[in-house]
């Protein structure tokens, strides 16, 4: 065997081995809906999940066996492995997690199942599943579990829990678009991320549970609703157990608690960690919280000024519940909606939709559960522009060093500004293509732009475009856009490059023969 093919086999083995473990992690995750089905005596959903779990375990085990030579050998995990494993496992997880949806019979096609799973894992929140109000508890638990796990990062969770001594775990971690190291090792960082999320899960679910009982839900139902709504809000997901989304509860207090949770969920895990370590000033000094404060306040002010002309909502409370709630939900990329989808199109007018599109694209914080091109990059590019404007005006003898505060004082180098601008450009291209496809499919420009921003930014608010009747091309594009938006492009590009390279080699071999 030639050296080149030996190396190629080796790469595939590494990728197969680690991807197999992530698939096994996904299979173990199905224990949660299985236990739920047992508790509520839902026998059909129990069978659905046992079948799905068995398929995932078989595929996971098969992949681990294919790459078994990786075990024991001290394999050096390269960046390309990290990126390809992260992006490939997200695709495989989408297919495998769609199986219980498909068997449940609540979707029109397997494509719709994949759409919902990708929407869940990427914490987008757009839904094609039908008759949400009558889903089994097990399937509802599954929908919200994948959203919760997707927000924190499935790849890192699986690798840190299932693989001992993962030398290249940081590369998988970066491959999943997380880049902050809270402690020197990734295992410790992943544990801290999960600890923060679990503490908030306990407190947030308790708050929503009590409030649920106050507004008239029965204790068990109130608990399930609280758990689902917490998982959805904290992960800036946007799923809800009922078709009417947050409107089902008709409660200002429920809306305020979820608002607090999704704003907290949109913060960087590094920021949570810094504050929990006693560094409370980070909350006001951090470039991301400053950027979020400025852009969200400006967006609220502009839309409220627009609505003061329209006189659509009668008082301050109505305006807060309908306007501020939706803007903050869009800006944090949550996607819980306190009005019906078509009300955006029919009542909010062009200006309201434009502001919503902008905030959905900006999104939340880096290394959080939120999507969009992130407040960090907006702040960095804004400071970069200021730097360029000030440069010619300052003295040639005094070279000023420009800085920004992100966990610590950092120098604003041209490289940082360039890489931030590039990612923003990628998002804009993705958004542009989505808008083009929407208009080509027959939707109005504003509807297409709204839905494209919602998909690219992993938001989940809909203006009415996303439905089972949406053209297949648009559904496929939405799946790709959610996937690319969540993984922030690099991993997906790496997978395409890797697959393309393999295909080229195969063609060359066939041509030689």
């Amino acid at each position, binding site marked *: 065997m030639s050296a080149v093919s030996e190396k190629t086999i080796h790469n595939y083995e590494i990728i197969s081995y680690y991807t197999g473990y992530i698939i096994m992690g996904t299979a173990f995750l199905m224990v949660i809906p299985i236990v739920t089905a047992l508790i509520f005596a839902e026998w059909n959903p129990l069978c659905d999940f046992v079948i799905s779990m068995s398929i995932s375990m078989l595929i996971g085990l098969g992949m681990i066996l294919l790459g078994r030579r990786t075990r024991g050998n001290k394999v050096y995990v390269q960046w390309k492995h990290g990126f390809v494993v992260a992006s490939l496992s997200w695709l495989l997880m989408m297919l495998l997690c769609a199986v219980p949806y498909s068997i449940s019979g609540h979707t029109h096609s397997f494509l719709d199942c994949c759409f919902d799973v990708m929407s869940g894992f990427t914490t987008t929140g757009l839904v094609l599943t039908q008759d949400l109000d009558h889903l089994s508890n097990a399937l509802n638990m599954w929908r919200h579990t994948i959203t919760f796990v997707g927000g924190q990062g499935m790849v890192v969770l699986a690798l840190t829990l299932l693989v001992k001594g993962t030398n290249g775990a940081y590369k998988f971690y970066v491959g999943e678009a997380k880049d902050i190291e809270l402690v020197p090792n990734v295992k410790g960082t992943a544990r801290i991320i999960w600890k923060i999320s679990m503490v908030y899960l306990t407190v947030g679910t308790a708050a929503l549970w009590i409030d649920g009982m106050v507004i008239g839900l029965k204790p068990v139902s109130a608990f399930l609703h609280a758990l689902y709504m917490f998982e959805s809000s904290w992960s800036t997901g946007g799923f809800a157990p009922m078709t009417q989304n947050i409107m089902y509860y008709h409660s200002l207090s429920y809306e305020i608690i979820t608002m607090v949770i999704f704003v907290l969920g949109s913060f960087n895990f590094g920021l949570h*960690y810094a504050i929990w370590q*006693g560094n409370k000033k980070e909350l006001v000094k951090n470039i991301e919280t400053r950027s979020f*404060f400025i852009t969200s306040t400006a967006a609220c002010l502009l839309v409220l000024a627009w609505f003061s002309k329209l006189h659509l909502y009668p008082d*301050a409370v109505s305006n807060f519940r309908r306007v501020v709630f939706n803007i903050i939900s869009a800006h944090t990329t949550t996607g819980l909606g306190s009005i019906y989808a078509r009300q955006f199109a029919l009542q909010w007018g062009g200006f309201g939709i434009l502001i919503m599109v902008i905030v959905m694209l900006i999104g939340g914080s880096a290394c959080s559960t939120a999507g969009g091109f992130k407040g960090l990059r907006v702040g960095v590019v804004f400071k970069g522009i200021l730097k360029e404007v000030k440069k010619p005006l300052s003295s040639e003898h005094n070279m000023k060093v420009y800085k920004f505060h992100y966990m610590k004082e950092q120098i604003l180098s041209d490289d940082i500004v360039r890489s931030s601008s590039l990612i923003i450009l990628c998002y804009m291209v993705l958004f542009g293509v989505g808008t083009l496809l929407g208009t080509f499919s027959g939707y109005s420009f504003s509807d297409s732009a709204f839905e494209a921003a919602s998909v690219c930014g992993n938001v989940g608010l809909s203006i009415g475009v996303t439905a089972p009747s949406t053209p297949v091309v648009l559904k496929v594009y939405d799946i790709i856009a959610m996937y690319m938006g969540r993984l922030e492009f690099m991993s997906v590009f790496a997978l395409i490059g890797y697959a393309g390279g393999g295909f080229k080699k195969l063609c060359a071999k066939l041509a030689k023969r």
Partner: protein
Amino acid sequence: MRNKKTDLIGLGAETLGVMAYLAFLYLLTAVMS
């Protein structure tokens, strides 16, 4: 992360910070309505 007390203080500080921001947005809404 240091101990449960500092964790809870951190959680409380974050939650209060966000609630203060939402109260500010409500005041803004009341002024604009």
